[in-house]
């Protein structure tokens, strides 16, 4: 028997074994067009991943959480990005603001009609409470999603609603009362699905005509970029090919152009990678202090190794009440590079 024959036999043998296993494992899909591909999910697997909560609260786990606990979790894990009162516009758009007691009665946020609130906050847009609960449960906190307990998710959801004067300070949000709270959402009647933009066969709401000759009486430029914004997106010369029918316009002075190509300090890439810039600006305070302010305070007084250790430990009080969480995912070497970069005057 040749080698190839033996291999053929072996393959055939394994095929029979696999087919037998599949037959035992998958009686329910005996009609499968692709036997042996995929397997049934176990109940535990479905439970581990199927965490979604629908607007009718299908999927909502039983439980409850108090506004008081929500405040505690908020201050520890949420306030550094969203602000103490959920009002911060520094890292993400604000969560709280722009809703009024009257809106709770009507279910329509008036500021969305009048446009007299500078930002469209989460609570102004929120029409289904499940969306808020589900999102906090699946994606928050920002750098440790899915780490909150069910009680904490109820609590933080309740705390946000309290910040928006939708529930009182002593409220305990639960699966039993969440439907009542849904009926107090300021923008619960603020959505429309009556449009042609969901169904591929739907009709668009705006139509142009394919006019070919003398279609406009006059053409007036109504908007253009102001001169001061000419270089807001960097030197456009460097964003276009150096051959072909066109070139990028030189929008930067010679000095500025040189800066854009200067090699970046590796600390900058680390700062982006570890989301430092979510809370720190280079020249301006965000939630935490400006990196250049850190330099001004410590340069010559604190060595890079100590600053690196402080970065990894986190802390509170030196720069204000908002705590900086410990950076456990940051290696000592990377922390040192970051500290060097900051003390060298981060750019």
């Amino acid at each position: 028997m040749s080698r190839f024959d033996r291999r053929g036999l072996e393959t055939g043998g394994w095929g029979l074994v696999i087919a037998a296993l599949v037959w035992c494992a998958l009686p329910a899909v005996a009609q499968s067009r692709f036997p042996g591909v995929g397997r049934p999910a176990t109940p535990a697997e479905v439970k581990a991943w199927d965490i979604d909560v629908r607007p009718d609260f299908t999927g909502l786990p039983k439980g409850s959480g108090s506004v008081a606990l929500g405040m505690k979790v908020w201050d520890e894990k949420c306030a550094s990005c969203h602000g103490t009162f959920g009002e911060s516009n520094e890292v993400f758009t604000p969560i709280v603001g722009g809703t009024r007691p009257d809106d709770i009665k009507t279910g329509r946020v008036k500021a969305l009609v009048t446009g007299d609130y500078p930002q469209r906050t989460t609570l102004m847009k929120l029409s289904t409470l499940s969306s808020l609960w589900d999102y906090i449960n699946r994606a928050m906190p920002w750098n440790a999603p899915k780490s909150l307990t069910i009680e904490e998710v109820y609590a933080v959801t309740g705390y946000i609603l309290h910040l928006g004067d939708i529930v009182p300070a002593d409220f305990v949000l639960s699966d039993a009362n969440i439907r009542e709270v849904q009926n107090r959402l300021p923008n619960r009647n603020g959505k429309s699905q009556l449009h042609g933009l969901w169904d591929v066969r739907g009709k668009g709401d705006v139509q142009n005509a394919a006019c070919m000759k003398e279609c406009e009486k006059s053409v007036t430029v109504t908007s253009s970029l102001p001169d001061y914004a000419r270089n807001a997106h960097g030197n456009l010369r460097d964003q276009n090919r150096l051959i072909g029918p066109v070139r990028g316009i030189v929008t930067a002075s010679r000095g500025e152009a040189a800066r854009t190509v200067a090699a970046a300090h590796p600390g900058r890439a680390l700062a982006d990678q570890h989301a430092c810039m979510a809370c720190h600006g280079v020249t301006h305070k965000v939630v935490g202090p400006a990196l250049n302010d850190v330099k001004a305070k410590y340069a010559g007084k604190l060595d890079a190794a100590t600053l690196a250790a402080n970065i990894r430990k986190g802390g509170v009080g030196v720069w204000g009440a908002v705590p900086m969480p410990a950076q456990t995912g940051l290696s000592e070497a990377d922390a040192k590079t970051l500290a060097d970069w900051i003390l060298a005057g981060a750019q």
Partner: protein
Amino acid sequence: MATPTPGRVQRAPENFLAPADIAEVAAGRRGFLRAALVAASAGVAATAARASQGDPAILNLPEHTRGLGQPVAARAYGLPSKHEESLQRRESPGLTRVGAASVSFAPLQGFFGIITPNGLHFERHHQGWWDIDPTRHRLMINGLVKEARVYTMDDLMRLPSVSRMHFIECGANTGMEWGNVAVPTVQYTHGMLSCCEFTGVPLSVLLDECGFDKKRGKFVLAEGADGSSMTRTIPLDRALDDVIVAWAMNGEMLRPENGYPLRLVVPGIQGVSWVKWLRRIEVGDKPWGSKDEVLHYVDLMPDGLHRQYTSIQECKSVITTPSGGQQLLQKGFHNVSGIAWSGRGKVKRVDVSFDGGKNWQTARLETPVLTKCLARFNIGWEWKGGPAILQSRAMDDTGYVQPKLRQLREVRGARSIYHNNAIQSWKVAESGEVSNVQV
């Protein structure tokens, strides 16, 4: 009608000139060229040809003609030429404050044809990107199915696959321009747009395998495996039509930034529904109203109502060459080139105007023209040196005509962030500078 001027417009020796020098040429002052050519060849060997005899780029044989080049596989994974470094994905300064929840725009101003190179595909992440170990990645299908099932990548890649070319556009593409001109170039106005050949298994095959409930099933939920676990609702008829569970783009596996090893491809629908790092599909009877279906990707109308589940990317086009932030080098013939697309089907026609929309000419559509895919259009134009406003206007095979910005605003106001498919205007100044304007 513009008459194309045959032959080469830009003369070879001018190719190394600085913009100021080009202006001299444009003004007809060529005497200085001799001096420039002498300077260009001054550093080369004594055998250098004299400038008066011709172009030093021809007469002085360059090193690459006289030496030994690099061996095969010097770069095991090839890279673009170092001379192409200017074309990169870029962020729009000030648009977002957190890189892990941001956008990088594709440099449409430098693309040819309709396919986006994988390294320049636009990015949008909601909670950062990951390079996931494909051997540990799983896809689960559950909900209103006879049997919830789990597939490994090995399983999925055994199934009969399809390869199809489709555009992907973020619902917020051109969103910065609803109120006024905000950004300078087509990279930032339209660069949340890419187009690839995607390979994967039709979602309908997997839904069939799991025995989805044909009576009660009305929607599917797609969910990602990243921290945001992005969730989007897709109507079941859409899911059964042309949606693909894809692992490849342009002949190689998905890039990590684009969802490696598995993403959903939802042709014609805004990019957010093309869930990356796809881990789960659930069949249900009602929409899920996820955060990105309630708080974002909702279109604010003048009456204060938000339109929800606005998903279709309607017919749209834009001229990419010449476009904002570029400069024409010379008068004469130019090939005006751009892209058009529709989330409802095929592009049927593209018209181009050189006078801000007063008069239009039909451009040439290059093949292939595919459904829910970018189409490339070209039209010849002789620039006589005067001011001009360039526009393109696409029609799709439903008869829909891409609207003017003011028509969009009349219906939807100027506060919506999403689904701005208005005609784009590029103003050409007498200097040859092209800028972004609204008319």
